[in-house]
């Protein structure tokens, strides 16, 4: 079966020294739709899974592709109508593989460099292999050539389907664009995010600011399936991570000490924030826009405080008349804002600028986790706080970047802002107004990118979604969500079938900017082994061996 393979070009190609298992040969295809492979008689169609990697040995080039479909073919179209003795193994065996055979559709994505280990990496495939080119499963070496290896400083996130190879991500490239982690509830979004964040932290090229809605990333998280707690970033990285909390009591109850407690002053709230909260607070458009009138009247710093005071004094009607807004709308705004400002983290006047504090930490190369504690379930609080802080951080970054461009000051450190339930900030109604919409669209230029985590990607504004460079998608089954995740991706029809067949746990389709081609990843376990590689300073195998030898004089 593994006879040395003579490529079409009569000896021009290399011998199949490091090829994987032979699968079959190319029988038809096109660049647009990929090539069709007819499986060899001894290869069972059941062995091949959608999403696996395949190499195709053309006469001059070697192509790297991914299986997008598996099918059954026959040389005789009448076969399906011909009664055949299905229980006669002799007849079936003779037919199998010759008259009735398996086919595999492969989308060639890359052309591999001629010589392995060459500086020149794989490049996008602009052609397809010729008829009768042989197809092989991709070997470990192939996968490393395409995705990079851990030794080259890439981050190991898991393995490709049916392979034990380490699949690595170039984190430097990853944080250059916004990224998205999607998947329906319970598919492992949080674990994947935690893993990526740990990678970003370890890599150290970027800082991260995490709006931790459910207090899962900071100190520790829960594995609800196994019923165990897992280490959070603070436990793994110690001083590299500072935790902020909105809810000191909640943190104390959990026996954690946090670095800072966040208080937001009324003076920090802007009418834009109210606009953003319109949906969560169930405010009418008129009521929300009244905030702008209030700011005009009372000034930027004290509009909310003065407005609430006016409400307490019972002078809302006069105020409405003065501002020429609907009295009912103004009352509604008052009621909602009053209820909202009763939150423990809201104070009348805060002299401490939390955003400035955060930036200070971030500039020191630290990573900031903001835990929401019991406010995590309060959608309005999450939206307000994250928006408010991010807006201020954004302003600082833009300033810093601009002065760096002017030659004064250094470039701001790349920042990744992590938000959950992203569709609440980035839906089409508010994406144009929230700071996150702006970041998603343009802030890459200012070294700030977003990591959006969401289970309803269809709710995210399509313009914003198109700016999400690298997408990690766990299982999604809603058609609209699948469409949204795949929008703007080439070959989305083929990816669609891959995406809807992911396993419910620990599997994700990863594609976009940071990867040369889409890949289904079995996400690596987040557990003791992972902690060890992180905390052990990421010693390579040789390094470990060397240390052991040193200790025991081996």
């Amino acid at each position, binding site marked *: 079966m593994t006879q040395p393979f003579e490529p079409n070009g009569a000896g021009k190609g290399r011998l199949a020294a490091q090829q994987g298992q032979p699968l079959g040969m190319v029988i038809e295809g096109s660049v647009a739709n990929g090539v069709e492979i007819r499986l060899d008689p001894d290869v069972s169609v059941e062995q091949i899974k959608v999403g696996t990697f395949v190499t195709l040995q053309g006469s001059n080039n070697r192509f790297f592709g991914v299986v997008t479909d598996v099918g059954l073919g026959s040389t005789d179209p009448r076969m399906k109508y011909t009664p*055949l*003795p299905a229980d006669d193994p*002799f007849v079936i065996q*003779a*037919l199998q593989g*010759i*008259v009735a055979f398996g086919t595999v559709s492969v989308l060639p994505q890359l052309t591999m460099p001629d010589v392995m280990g060459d500086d020149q990496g794989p490049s996008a495939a602009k052609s397809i292999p010729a008829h009768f080119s042989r197809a092989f499963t991709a070997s470990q070496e192939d996968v490393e050539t395409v995705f990079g290896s851990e030794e080259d400083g890439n981050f190991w996130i898991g393995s490709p389907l049916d392979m034990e190879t380490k699949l690595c991500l170039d984190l430097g490239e990853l944080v250059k664009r916004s990224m998205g982690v999607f998947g329906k509830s319970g598919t492992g979004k949080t674990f994947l995010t935690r893993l990526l964040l740990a990678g970003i932290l370890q890599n150290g090229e970027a800082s991260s600011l995490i709006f931790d809605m459910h207090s899962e990333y900071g100190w520790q998280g829960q594995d609800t399936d196994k019923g165990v707690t897992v280490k959070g970033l603070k436990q793994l990285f110690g001083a590299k991570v500072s935790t902020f909390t909105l809810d000191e009591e909640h943190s104390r109850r959990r026996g954690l000490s946090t670095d800072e407690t966040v208080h937001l002053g009324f003076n920090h709230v802007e009418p834009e924030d109210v606009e953003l909260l319109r949906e969560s607070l169930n405010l009418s458009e008129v009521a929300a826009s009244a905030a702008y009138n209030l700011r005009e009247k009372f000034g930027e710093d004290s509009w909310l405080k003065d407005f609430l005071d006016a409400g307490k004094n019972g002078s809302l009607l006069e105020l409405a008349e003065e501002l020429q807004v609907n009295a009912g709308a103004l009352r509604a705004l008052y009621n909602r804002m009053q209820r909202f400002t009763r939150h423990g983290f809201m104070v009348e006047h805060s002299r401490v600028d939390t955003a400035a504090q955060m930036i200070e930490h971030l500039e020191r190369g630290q990573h900031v986790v903001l835990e929401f504690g019991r406010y995590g379930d309060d959608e309005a609080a999450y939206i307000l706080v994250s928006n408010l802080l991010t807006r201020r951080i954004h302003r600082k970054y833009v300033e810093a970047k601009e002065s760096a461009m002017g030659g004064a000051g250094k470039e701001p450190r790349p920042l990744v802002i992590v938000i959950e339930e992203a569709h609440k900030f980035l839906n089409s109604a508010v994406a144009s107004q929230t700071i996150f919409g702006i970041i998603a669209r343009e802030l890459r230029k200012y070294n700030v990118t977003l990591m959006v985590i969401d289970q309803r990607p269809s709710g995210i504004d399509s313009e914003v979604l198109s700016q999400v460079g690298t997408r990690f998608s766990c299982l999604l089954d809603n058609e609209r969500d699948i469409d949204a995740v795949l929008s703007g991706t080439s070959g989305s029809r083929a990816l669609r079938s891959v995406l809807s067949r992911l396993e419910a746990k620990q599997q994700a389709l990863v594609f976009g900017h940071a990867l040369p081609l889409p890949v289904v990843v079995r996400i690596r376990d987040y557990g003791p082994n992972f902690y060890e590689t992180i905390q052990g300073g990421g010693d390579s195998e040789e390094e470990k061996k060397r240390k052991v030898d040193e200790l025991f004089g081996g």
Partner: protein
Amino acid sequence: MTQSSANGLMDRRVGEVVESTSTSFMAQCYQLEGAPALGALVRTDSPDIYGVVGSVTTEPLDSARPVLARGEDAATEEDVIRDNPQLTRLLTSRFEVFIAGHVEDGVIRQYLPPRPPRVHSFVYACNIGEISAFTERLDLLRLLLNSGASHSDEIVGACIRQAAQSHDQPSDFLANACRTLAVELSADVARLNSILRRVAP
């Protein structure tokens, strides 16, 4: 005639070519009912042309004198022949052979020879060694399938069954033959199926 083939060749002589075309020839048996079996591999000598027996006929020598039934009073079938000794002289057995290949400069070629065997060439039954050597490759199946005989499926089936017995590993040979058939008949599964069932062990 080569030295080695002379050895025992005489004993295997079954008939003589009486009619010859590019694709087949007709041989007359020396013995009444002495024809080789359907699907058997036979050969002529110098030139060495191999063929597969496609049909066997026993008929009166003179077509104007049809055979009559003579055994009404005979106790056994042998008695009929014994009581009518002239019968063996009035009847003759012939067999038609589809040419399956030839030997050219010592190499077996499974395609038609440039010229068919000459009339009066002797026809020999092949021994086990010759059968297994000739059926190492199975391009002859295509010649047989396309022989134009109305029962070519039967000939192919019989040929494979008999050839299998001359191989050390009959099951391997059968599997190989079936794969070859599947390739040849990839566009006609129903026919393929019918032949496969004929050769199934």
